[in-house]
């Protein structure tokens, strides 16, 4: 039986996926990744590669759904803030990245996903498309628009 090595996958990828969920803006990255692994465990996929793709896509989906849920809550309540991860963790990010990360956080969701998957996980366009549930062509579009928006934002900051 071509059984994915669930325990090895967990040991090797859990932390990385928590970081992915965090970079995508999840307010509780661990909650999302634990759910992704729980769902993976009840599935039988082609191989470990497929399992990893499934995990990435599930993390993207769950984060997206969670952010959408929080946005709906905000619509029902006045003056809501953006959801963020633990404030104490966030303060640890050094100052030199502050402006850039703030600009990333202001990007549309799809653009942010494309940039995180490409520049942090170093995924191929095909892999990014699988994780985001879009076509490879759309990946190019989202990434290039995201980069352009970041460039503009940083120039504005410099003025």
């Amino acid at each position, binding site marked *: *039986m*071509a*059984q994915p*090595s669930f*325990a*090895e996958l*967990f*040991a*090797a990828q*859990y*932390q*990385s996926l*928590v*970081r992915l969920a*965090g*970079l995508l*803006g999840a307010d509780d*990255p*661990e909650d999302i*990744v*634990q*759910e992704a692994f*729980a*769902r993976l*465990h*009840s*599935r*039988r996929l*082609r*191989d470990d590669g*497929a399992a990893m793709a499934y995990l990435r896509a599930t993390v993207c989906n769950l984060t997206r759904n969670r952010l959408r849920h929080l946005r709906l809550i905000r619509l029902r*309540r006045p*003056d*809501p*803030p*953006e959801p*963020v*991860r*633990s*404030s*104490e*963790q*966030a*303060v*640890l*990010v*050094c100052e030199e*990245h*502050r402006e*850039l*990360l*703030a600009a*990333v956080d202001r990007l549309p969701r799809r653009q942010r996903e494309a940039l*995180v998957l490409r*520049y*942090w996980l170093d995924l191929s366009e095909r892999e990014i498309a699988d994780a985001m*549930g879009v076509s490879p062509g759309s990946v190019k579009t989202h990434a290039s628009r995201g*980069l352009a928006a*970041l460039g503009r934002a*940083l120039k504005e900051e410099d003025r």
Partner: protein
Amino acid sequence: MTDLEERLRAAFDARAQTFETSPDAWVRVRERRPRRYLALRLAAAALPVALLAVFVPVLLNGGLGGNTAAGADAIYQGLMRGRTAAGEQVTVDNPTEGKPLRLWFARGRLGNPELCYVLDRADSEAFGGCSRMPTIGSDAWFAGSTAREQAETALDWGVAVDDIGTVTGVAGDGQRFPGQLWRPAGAPYRIWTVTYPARQPLSKIEIADDRGRDLGERSRDMFAAPQPGQALGAAHDLPAGVTARPFRTKEGTELRLTRGGAELGTSLLGRAMPPVDARMRENVITGVAAGNVSRIAFSFEDGTTAQVGTRPDPWGLGITLFAAEGAPDNGEERHRLVAYDASGAEVWRDEAGDPREDTPPVGEVMSLPGTGAVGEPVRVWFTGAGSGATGPTVTLCYSGGVDPDLSCIGGGRHPEHFGSPLRAVQYLPEPGTVSYFGAAGDDWESVEAVLSDGRRLPATFRRGTGTPAPIWYVTIPSSDAEVAGFTMKRKGRPLGLFPETRKDCGQQALRSDTPRHPLPAGVTALVSEPNCLAFWENGELVMGLAGPLPGTRLSDLLSAEQPVTWGRGTHTWYGYALAGTARIEVTSSNGVTGTAEAAPDPWGQGVTLFAAPVPEGADFSAGMVVKGFDAGGRQLWQQD
């Protein structure tokens, strides 16, 4: 790569490092899995049983009606083989089937509490099973459902801890349905049931305690995940209460198997599928096989064997399906199988591996003293699995205890900091034990477990041959007080205090009679014993903070290096700071500044408490600077 791309990569790397992982992650994942647990076998305890679970076509129109009562009794007897009842049995009217649903608690071979059921059905055979209780952090959860296609009424059931007095089901459309709570004499938990129209499936339950205090809601999502895609045909009933249904998803055609409302597994069909894709849960063997497989022989590590016949799928997918009761409980992962075609020729064989093979040890595998009198001892080892892209890691794994598959936690760094420990539970011999352990640094002088009654139990250090780091461990009788946290002393450093991470901080605080302390911006706070500080924002629970360990104060958790501990709710930020702090100022990453007035806490904890609205436009995601000032406006500290 452009300069911007380089900067982006560096910025992502820097931010990624700020996301920590908790050591109980594996346990949490296991608790989310739909009542499905891995297990290594307790080789000497179970009797070899030869079972013949040849497929019997389901008879329609009540054809099995005369046999179902006997079937239910036989299933009960089978489930209780190797188990002991824990409390009286509850018999519930099942509106879906018009036949009784039997629910009861039992103790498994390792003494672990389980909830068992036998669901008798109107036009099919009865089925049943037993599932384990989560060991931490839950006070009410879903355990099963009678819901099935074409039923008008359904019933969900679940478990609640002792102080839950009311359970109300809430449908996806918001309609609420009163639940019933059962208190079987001698049982370790309560049982709840909620009956609802099948067209309005529950999405959650609301719970209140015996005195009517609202304890919030618990989602059904973790019990049953949404359908994976577009259905390709009607659901098809298999023996043993298993239902199969194909879906078209982004990956292709997937077959989903469910039982009692819970998902057993989903298989991706097509060329990538192995000739037999078998799933074991509770006492059930089920799955999907290639079209030419007519019989599958299973043999489990405890000596149990089972033969399962297959049937062709009804949707023309060219596969065969199988389901039968007959697996040893929790025998999922450790089995051999041989598949035969109609002529009796072998077409495939496979053996599920030991999950520990995936985490090869680096150095000695150590057994924790005081474990293993019944079942497997708790074995602890370091592994290289997980090292790679982010460099070498110190990953600690264990197997044994009541959930004796393996669990690992990788720190991604050498153990200088005290991370939350790993935890292994043993119920036998009574009263059982809980072992805590973790990787240690070479300069660690002591670790103590702090119990909720204030006692401190010293941990033992051990360095295995060839291991990358020492370990510490402490084993505590289950009858003893709860572990509230730990202390750790490094050479030349002050004693560190580490409250156990508790995600149920708020759940426990809701049960307190102590009035909450009002803070600005609609925030209230309460020290929730034994070790956390709960916060509410306009009456709704928000993230709790680490609280004082028994015998210590909140001020003991603060220092010049850590002058403030704070969190963020939906609209507010709040926390506690060093005594003497009268005003806190935060400057967000996008340059927006907010202030909060701080005042001494009312509990004699030696800190000041604060809360304020999140300033408009503030970005709290990175690069914040927090400063504390005294009443005269003089800056006392800065955290950045």
